[in-house]
């Protein structure tokens, strides 16, 4: 490129840049600034006063909406599923009470503080065996109730699960069988048939 052309472009750039930024502020900038200073923070903070309540309201709205979403999430079916999930592994650890006898009194079924807590997170699924103990109590005690004297408390706890998931009642009735889920049907019928007989016999006989 010839040198005179470079000089021409340089001059054009200089001139364009000067036109873009070599300007003066409107007259009275000092007075405008002093006016804003003397007006105090009330005038200059007008926007801030506007924004703080708006931001606070927005934050509250977000919290409320978040709470509603959390509350409306399907919590109620989850404990049922958790119960099912808690019952599922019950046949496998069915031999545990005999190995750890101290665990039997610790899991009494009627303790209110040990009532099945609402299970919300996968962490509860990890505690499924413990949930089974909380719902049905120690397996040895449940076996006694199912065999001889029907306890209304136990029935009320076991019946819904038995209707929804036959394996639950089966697991309660046969703690000795580790492969109980395979033979669900015959054993499930046993407590259903026996229970009304016992209930009728108690008031009439004694």
């Amino acid at each position, binding site marked *: 490129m010839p040198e005179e052309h470079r000089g*021409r*472009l340089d001059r*054009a750039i200089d001139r364009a*840049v000067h*036109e*873009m*930024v*070599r300007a003066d502020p409107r007259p009275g900038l*000092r007075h405008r600034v002093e006016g*804003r200073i003397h007006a105090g923070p009330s005038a200059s903070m007008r926007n801030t006063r506007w924004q703080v309540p708006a931001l606070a309201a927005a934050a509250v709205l977000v919290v409320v909406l978040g709470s509603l979403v959390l509350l409306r999430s399907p919590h109620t079916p989850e404990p049922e599923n958790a119960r099912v999930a808690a019952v599922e592994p019950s046949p496998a650890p069915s031999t545990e009470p005999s190995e750890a006898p101290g665990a039997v009194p610790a899991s009494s079924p009627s303790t209110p503080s040990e009532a099945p807590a609402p299970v919300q997170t996968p962490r509860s699924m990890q505690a499924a065996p413990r949930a089974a103990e909380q719902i049905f109590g120690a397996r040895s005690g449940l076996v006694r109730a199912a065999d001889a004297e029907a306890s209304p408390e136990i029935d009320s706890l076991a019946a819904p699960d038995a209707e929804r998931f036959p394996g639950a009642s089966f697991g309660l009735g046969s703690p000795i069988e580790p492969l109980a889920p395979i033979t669900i049907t015959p054993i499930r019928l046993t407590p259903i048939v026996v229970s009304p007989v016992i209930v009728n016999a108690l008031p009439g006989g004694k």
Partner: protein
Amino acid sequence: MTAPQAAEVTDLELVRLAQAGDSGAFGELVERNRRAVFRAALAAVGSGAEADDVAQEAFVTAWRKLSGFRGDSQFRTWLLSITWRKAIDRRKSIGRWLKLAASASRDEAGDDLFDVVDRVPATGMTPEASLESAELQRDVRKLVRSLPPKLRDALLLAGTGEHTYEEIGGMLGAPVGTVKWRVAEARRVLKRKLTAMGYFDA
């Protein structure tokens, strides 16, 4: 404080007076630095009206924060750094970009984005040369606006005639050598693009 008195005192003395509550002393500081502040803001936001707003905000902010100024650096450097932060905030705002888009469309029709400028009269030129020069100027301005922000900011701040390289470096947060390189690189890019547009043949 009267004008002759104000002319005799330094910026630092005016700052001390202003820190003691003398708003007149701060007004004198505004008067002394208004052009440098305004042009720095103009280099960032590209509009005279916006730059005027930014300049006001910068001075008001400086007044509020004046008690925290210890005098470790020059007041002007401190003020310009406030100005630049305000200007960049303004430039980043959504509304600002919407206005830029509208201004750019106006510029396509022949208007300027930088609306507060003192036009350099084109004297002693033939109508053809004047027309060609106007076209070149328009293209150069368009190319300057299309530069990367780092190059554009350095080029425009250096072009204000109000700021030293040290002050520009303080505003941009870059060493003086980097600022000088950016200015030179911006000019190289502009010339290369202008050459590609055919201006070297004129």
